[in-house]
């Protein structure tokens, strides 16, 4: 017995050591997992069991200046589905035929939204009641599919003020990446343009949340916590619904009038109405326009292509702030004021207009639009008759005076830079100068030098000068309000839940060109002359309010002339400034000016009758 026991002694020791090593290594590993890195595993366990979905907040309404709704919400039935539905192809096919959404569209919608695993995916918004009740009755046949209450934007005025209001849509990947809305998730509806975009944060409200505990199948076991959403705030705009409607009507009438006069390429244009003192935008029209409701629940590819093809003239663009035009003769008011302010001319300065101006030498001669010439021309007559010859001389004076006084003055009037309106997409326009020309032609050294002709061209609003309709209206507002450039804005106030204004937009002064009262009076008298005896007379015959305005007819390479009119009124105590531009509309005095009169008729409560007149000036 002893012999075999002695034999086995070492072997038992080996067996014992093997057992010890096994248990020991398990214990060491457990120490590492449970004690050293227990925290990260605990976090993983929490991640396993807790799911959070956000509860959408009602989007704020957008009201006009008198509190009338421009955009509201309408409760609708939306069909939603869990992501897992996509695994059942027969179910997806059935669903597709019931709600009328193609199978691949459903699959696409179910496979996106990676951020929120539990959140149901919206398949179709605004389904008819009978579809909703069919799905509710047959809910057993459609597991994971639900009909939920949702809300979509409603536009009581149809396309009214579409460019100012903007449209909404699902947040884009780039918007998400930009992280402008920190708690935004894929699938959220956000403002894409206009006020919907610029005041998105106010309109959005705060999302609520619901935190669940789920099991391994993702089934909800308990609701752990819940936070109710806070509805977005209503906002009140400076836009007056009635004036806006008239401005849009006037613009389309002006385009029709252009066609009547033979300018059949006229399809686009813009009209802006400002309060001269506050910069409040009372109306802002852009043609062609679009119906923002096509974006509800996701715009179709066909509609999107339609809105973006070249022949459509890009109806999504708000031309009032996104397009820049040669201001043509409407700029002569600015040049005149610049001349007076810099004392290069006086109210009594006169020039001879022989029809063909040779101030820079015979080989560089330039025609006045009136080839027979205006004879001796005073400032008053030069504005009233839109005499190019007079302003060629003023331009030459600016060139000879050296420096860039004309450009500097144009800039203090708010041109050549964004005015900072509370709408996205505003462009800065252009006030050309020596540095700009050099940079612009950096590959063409022979064109880099600033020539006298550049200043002369600019002084009749042609050449490389570009302004937006908003800038033009703002410049005339400055002439009308006694010389202050104020920031244009469309927001009147953010409203508290009880409807009172919680945040009101205040007047922001951008610059003060320090216009002398005498010079303003001189110019006003000349601008009133335009509508009483000058190039705009035909459009304002019988209009009871005195209007200080200027016609413009811009030459654009390869296109018909653009028709412009800018004004402020009443001339004696200005309240409103208006700019109207019709692309390829022909003459400002006969196409744009009647539109301005039509808008002012509404503003001042005057009866309006369609005007057909003629204008041959530029």
């Amino acid at each position, binding site marked *: 017995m002893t012999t075999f026991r002695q034999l*086995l002694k070492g072997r038992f020791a080996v067996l014992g050591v093997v057992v010890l090593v096994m248990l020991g290594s398990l214990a060491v590993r457990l120490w590492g997992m449970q004690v050293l890195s227990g925290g990260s595993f605990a976090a993983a366990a929490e991640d396993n069991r807790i799911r959070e979905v956000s509860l959408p907040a009602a989007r704020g309404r957008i009201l006009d200046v008198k509190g009338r709704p421009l955009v509201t919400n309408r409760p609708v039935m939306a069909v939603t589905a869990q992501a897992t539905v996509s695994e059942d192809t027969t179910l997806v096919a059935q669903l597709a035929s019931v709600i009328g959404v193609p199978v691949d569209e459903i699959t696409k919608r179910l496979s996106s939204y990676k951020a929120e695993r539990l959140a149901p995916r919206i398949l179709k918004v605004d389904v008819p009641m009978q579809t909703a009740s069919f799905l509710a009755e047959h809910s057993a046949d459609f597991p994971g599919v639900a009909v939920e209450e949702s809300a979509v934007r409603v536009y009581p005025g149809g396309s009214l003020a579409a460019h100012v209001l903007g449209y909404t849509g699902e947040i884009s990947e780039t918007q998400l990446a930009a992280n402008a809305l920190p708690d935004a998730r894929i699938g959220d509806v956000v403002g894409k343009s206009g006020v919907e975009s610029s005041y998105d944060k106010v309109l959005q409200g705060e999302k609520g949340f619901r935190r669940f505990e789920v099991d391994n199948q993702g089934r909800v076991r308990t609701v752990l916590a819940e936070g109710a959403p806070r509805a977005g705030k209503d906002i009140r705009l400076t836009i007056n619904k009635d004036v806006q409607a008239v401005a849009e009507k006037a613009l389309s009438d002006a385009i029709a009038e252009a066609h009547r006069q033979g300018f059949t390429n006229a399809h686009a244009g813009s009209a802006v109405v400002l309060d001269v003192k506050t910069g409040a935008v009372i109306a802002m029209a852009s043609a062609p326009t679009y119906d923002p409701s096509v974006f509800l629940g996701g715009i179709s590819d066909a509609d999107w292509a339609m809105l973006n093809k070249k022949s459509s003239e890009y109806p999504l663009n708000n031309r009032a702030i996104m397009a820049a035009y040669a201001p043509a003769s409407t700029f002569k008011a600015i040049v005149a004021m610049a001349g007076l302010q810099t004392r290069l001319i006086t109210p009594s300065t006169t020039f001879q207009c022989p029809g063909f101006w040779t101030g820079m030498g015979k080989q560089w001669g330039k025609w006045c639009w009136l080839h027979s010439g205006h004879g001796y021309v005073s400032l008053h007559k030069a504005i009233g008759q839109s005499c190019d010859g007079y302003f060629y001389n003023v331009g030459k004076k600016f060139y000879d005076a050296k420096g860039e006084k004309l450009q500097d003055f144009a800039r203090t009037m708010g041109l050549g830079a964004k005015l900072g309106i509370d709408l996205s997409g505003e462009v800065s326009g252009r006030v050309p100068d020596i540095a700009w020309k050099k940079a612009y032609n950096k590959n063409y050294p022979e064109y880099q030098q600033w020539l006298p002709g550049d200043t002369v061209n600019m002084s009749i609003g042609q050449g490389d000068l570009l302004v937006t309709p908003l800038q033009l209206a703002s410049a005339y507002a400055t002439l009308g309000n006694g010389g202050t450039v104020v920031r244009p804005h469309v927001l009147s106030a953010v409203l508290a839940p009880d409807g009172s204004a919680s945040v009101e937009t205040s007047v922001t002064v951008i610059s003060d060109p320090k216009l002398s009262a005498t010079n303003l009076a001189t110019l006003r008298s000349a601008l009133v002359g335009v509508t009483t005896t000058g190039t705009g007379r035909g459009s304002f015959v019988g209009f009871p309010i005195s209007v200080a305005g200027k016609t413009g007819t811009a030459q654009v390479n390869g296109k018909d002339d653009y028709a412009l009119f800018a004004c402020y009124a009443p001339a004696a105590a200005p309240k409103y400034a208006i700019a109207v531009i019709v692309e390829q509309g022909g003459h400002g005095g006969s196409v744009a000016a009647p539109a301005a009169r039509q808008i002012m008729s509404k503003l001042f409560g005057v009866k309006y009758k369609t005007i057909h007149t003629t204008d041959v000036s530029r």
Partner: protein
Amino acid sequence: MRAPITRMVRDRVHGGLVLSAVALVVFGGVMVWAATLTMTGHAAMVQRQILGMAVGLLALVVMWLLDYQVLKAWTGPLMVALSLLIISPRIPGLGASVSGATSWLQIGSIRLFQPSEPAKLLFIVVLAAVIAEYGGKIDLPRDVLKVAGFAALPLVLILLQPDLGTGLVFVAIASGMLLVGGLKARWFAVFALTGTVLVGAIFGLNSLLVSAMNKPEGVLIKAYQMDRLLVFVDPTRDPKGAGYNLAQSKIAIGSGGLTGAGLGMGTQSRLNFIPERHTDFIFSVLGEQLGFAGAVMLLALYLALMASALSISASSRDLFGALVAAGLISMWAFQILENVGMTIGMMPITGIPLPFMSYGSSFMVTNLAGIGMLLSIWSRRYGTTTT
């Protein structure tokens, strides 16, 4: 003069073994209760486990009273019984297969037990009898071949079932017993080499057959077994499929921290994240609910159990008894290493339960019968005495 009762108890009862076994059985019962708490059929499962314990206690007493040396004489019949037991689930009218992996012996619709469990004990007894004949030294090729033949027959049969888990337990048992039985080191090397070559050949042949017969579910090795192995090598592979079990188990154990979430608590257990949480993955439940403290307590109990078994083995009056004890130690040690190891990613996932802890009455009865055998060896360490 009659021996004092204390002396009688000391002779027949190994205190360390009985205490550790009782503690493990109670611990296991509590864990099955805690693991099944939020499962449907919770009460029925707890009842069935308690029934298993009762039957196991009966088996323990029977084995204790039975003179283990009697078994030595029955090598032939026991070998036949072992073989029949292993193939019994394949006999029409007797077998039943649950979820493709666990095989049951059943008559009519009454499920009796999993034959692979008692087969482990029979395997130990048969192999102990064969090895004991060589007196603690196996070196002659003829002897080696005979022993290897006795070990290989049941091993091949169980692998053909196919029951890879029990097969691995057989290999572990044989290794431990051959160590104690005196197989020379170089023969271990030969076996290891042969085994490696065989396994390699099977894997190679499997992949050949899979592509040739176009059977992605596997021919010699089932696809799910392959997945478990590959997941062990690369845990990030297929996190929703085969890697899911491992990941969830590790999260459960790791999140237990030092003291755990508390008995019956723990979100991984409660919310079904741990798969097979009352059977193969019961250690994950323990780790989550009782933390490192509970896990170490369990390992300490296992250490006490196996140290007791080792002391019994060392004090056996004959080599046969020592070998049986060594076989039981090897069986438990391997199952503990494999089961706990797989829940923490140290071992590949196989369907091997955790002794005294996992839900399952056949398993419980087998382990308690093993305890009974150890007590039988201990009681008779001074010679065959009448009781």
